[in-house]
């Protein structure tokens, strides 16, 4: 079955420290990969995506992610965390099927940045 795994329910990091939120996927073919962020009582907001090309992609708010095909991973990173980065983060893959693309989301990782 095609799936996306986010192995950590919660990640705690001190403000100013680097952060990593992990994501691995198990899909057939070449997926498109995404990261989204959800703040309390809000919808999901797009952060960044990997379609093709450079394995390191940069996105909004200073976030970046590295696509690793051999490890089937797409970890989200930021060099210096801010308290305002505290939110729920979702990794997703987009797969072509039945003539359109279907997004499969991971279970989400809650990021808590401590002041």
């Amino acid at each position, binding site marked *: 079955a095609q799936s996306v795994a986010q192995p950590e329910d919660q990640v705690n990091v001190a403000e100013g420290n680097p952060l990593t939120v992990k994501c691995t996927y198990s899909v057939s073919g070449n997926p*498109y990969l*995404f990261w*989204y962020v*959800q703040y309390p*009582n*809000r*919808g*999901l*907001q*797009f952060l960044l*995506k990997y*379609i093709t090309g450079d394995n390191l992609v940069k996105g909004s708010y200073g976030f970046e992610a590295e696509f690793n095909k051999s490890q089937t991973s797409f970890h989200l990173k930021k060099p210096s965390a801010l308290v305002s980065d505290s939110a*729920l983060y*979702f990794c997703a893959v*987009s797969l*072509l099927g*039945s*003539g*359109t*693309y*279907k*997004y*499969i*989301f991971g*279970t*989400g990782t809650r990021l808590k940045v401590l002041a």
Partner: protein
Amino acid sequence: DTAVSQTPKYLVTQMGNDKSIKCEQNLGHDTMYWYKQDSKKFLKIMFSYNNKELIINETVPNRFSPKSPDKAHLNLHINSLELGDSAVYFCASSQDPSEAFFGQGTRLTVV
């Protein structure tokens, strides 16, 4: 202007009632979705429409019926509401294969 808007934002209703949630996108996207987010924050796709045509219909009870009058709208009608239907429902749109844009969500509470 809000790219993907859904109404209402909150919906509290009794078991057995029928209710609808409306969604509109002004991005010109061809594909629209409904997702359900449960109390554990898991996001699960329910339906996907492409140019008004149903493409994806996950294992969702028949009580849930999506309707797309045009490609800018995808409404969700729910019959005979049950306690387990309580969740946050998100509408989204995309122009494949790019990122999806999400609405603010509708928090449905069935009492």
